């Protein structure tokens, strides 16, 4: 393993991936004592900075660490937390834990797909919403649970979905 500071790598800057964000990531990697076993940590940070992990960011990390790009992609694609697609402004997460499932979460997510016109892990055309099915978020007492960003909606009924979606749509209009 090579010390991060010793490798200089060109930053694949583009409109979506501005230089400042790469600088921030570079600073984070350079500040690490060792690059041994820290790939997941770096990917977490990169996803924090960029919002997602596009190919260019993965390759940048690979070159920076002196490891094959395939190794980085292997890790990115393995873990469900990492995403290679940009996310909408609001992420709607539907808990698909067992407790929520037996209380009807499967119907909730189907309804949401229908209403938003997307499948899970996709982004709506207006870039407003991403739909995600997540594993248990641990609020089983409130099952079924839908999360929009950090806000948790408990004991959600199908009839309430329009209202939830509209809350966020209306926010856009007033802004």
């Amino acid at each position, binding site marked *: 393993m090579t010390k991060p500071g010793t490798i200089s790598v060109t930053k694949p800057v583009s409109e979506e991936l501005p230089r400042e964000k790469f600088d921030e990531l570079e600073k984070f990697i350079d500040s690490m004592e060792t690059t041994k076993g820290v*790939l997941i940590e770096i990917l*977490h940070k990169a996803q924090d900075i960029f919002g997602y992990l596009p190919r260019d960011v993965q390759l940048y990390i690979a070159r920076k660490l002196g490891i094959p790009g395939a190794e980085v992609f292997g*890790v990115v694609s393995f*873990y469900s*937390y990492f995403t290679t697609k940009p996310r909408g402004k609001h992420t709607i997460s539907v808990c698909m834990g067992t*407790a929520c499932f*037996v209380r009807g979460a499967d119907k909730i997510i189907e309804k949401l797909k229908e209403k938003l016109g997307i499948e899970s892990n996709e982004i709506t055309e207006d870039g407003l919403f991403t739909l995600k099915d997540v594993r248990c978020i641990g609020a089983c*007492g*409130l099952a079924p649970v839908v999360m929009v960003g950090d806000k948790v909606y408990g004991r959600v009924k199908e009839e309430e979905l329009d209202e939830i979606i509209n809350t966020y749509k209306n926010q856009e209009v007033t802004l």
Partner: protein
Amino acid sequence: MTRKRTNIMVCGGTACLASDSEKVVRNLNLILKARGYDKEVEVIKTGCFGFCEQGPIVKIEPDNVFYVRVAPKDAKEIVDEHIVKGRKVERLLYEEPEKKEKIDKHENIPFYKKQLRIALRNCGLINPEDIYEYIALGGYEALGKVLTSMTPSEVIDTVKRSGLRGRGGGGFPTGLKWEITSKQESDVKFIICNADEGDPGAFMDRSILEGDPHSVLEAMAIGGYAIGADKGIIYIRAEYPLAIKRLNVALQQARDMGLLGKNIFDTDFSFDIDIKYGAGAFVCGEETALINSCEGKRGEPNYKPPYPAQEGYWGHPTCVNNVETFANIPPIIKRGADWFASIGTEKSKGTKVFALAGKVNNVGLVEVPMGTTLREIIYDVGGGIQGGRKFKAVQTGGPSGGVITEQHLDTPIDYDSLTSIGSMMGSGGMIVMDETDNMVDIAKFYLEFTQDESCGRCTPCRIGTRRMYEILNKITSGKGTMADIDALKQLAYMIKDSSLCGLGQTAPNPVISTMKYFWDEYMDYIKDVDHPAGKGKYTAKNKDDAFLKS
């Protein structure tokens, strides 16, 4: 505990936070201030009380009054009535659903009556972000006792005699695991806390970390001393932001007080803990996969042997224990192995935390002695089935376990009894299902989960679970035949026998057990030529024959 006249304890667990307990805290503080009571009354945000169904929960000490479903707007009434005038707010007390009685003391609520809290002892009692509260309740005493008066082998012996078994699901004796790791000759050893709670529907580990993080840190230091490790790692899911935050606060406080770091309690023992984040992979609950993930790699399991105790993190001997296992260690050291061994059944000692969820009245976190029957948990603690419907089955052990039906409700539960009735303890998820649930759908739900979470390293699991899921889909869409049922069965046993790790070996369990107990529900889907009505038993025919017909 602070020297105030009254403490108002507000649950700060994830479920209660989701129903606005943060605002309850804020409103209480504002109103207390406005009424001039903020000097004598303190509002404390604690860990999970466990009674999530009735959240947010507010408990007032020392009056010992337990309020449920408190909304932010109720703060005014609590302060004006209870704190100022000393009258209970009847409206917010827990109402016993059958007798319609209001109950004010939490120990009289049926939900808490049969519980015995060891691992969850401090949850809901202390402010998890204040190390002094943990110490005030005897925290870090066990670590002090271990470091100043016990040898590592005495510690291991105590844990062995207590009969504590791994609470993550496997049930391997913890003391034995420590002993094996301690006997390895190596300068560098690691102790890892597995906080990658992947079972959908289980949230006990997160509640412990959110409600009592220091108990885990203390236990890890004890474990480190016992096996000869000076470095601990907590592997936690990135999806648990609150638990991560509280762990970080706890770590910093422990370091500042010299309870972690160099020369703890002025002894030669040094120990520190790092946090590593998972990124959402169920298989990382398996210890070799977890270690790979800690090393920044794909979380795929390895062949065993070598076991992690021999070659683990970066090739060094490593001991991996679960959060709940660790939470049991300090009480065992403090109160002795015999005390712990006196609780529970012959082969499973102590208590177990279950995340009771699904169609049960009192969803929440319960801790009961081993040997409690399922009926007691579901009906006495859980308050029976929602909406007065009929009980159908309970799934324990999550995607690795199986269903348990009415006929086994009186089985005293421990590791071995659950295995013998076709399920398993697992990490402690307990999902109750009522008569309206279709068991084939439940099996399909679990298979969808496992085939998605299969890491892909070994073929039986990668392809087999996928095929099983496809067959189940075919069956539930009404196109299935008896040949499909046959293939499903065969696949199930093949995957069980030939998968590399626990995930694959147990993945078919939901199918096997639902087939065993709810065969008719499978048959209802089959519109085979031989079984036009969809009913009737399949007599073992020539398999080729069945294939030709499908």
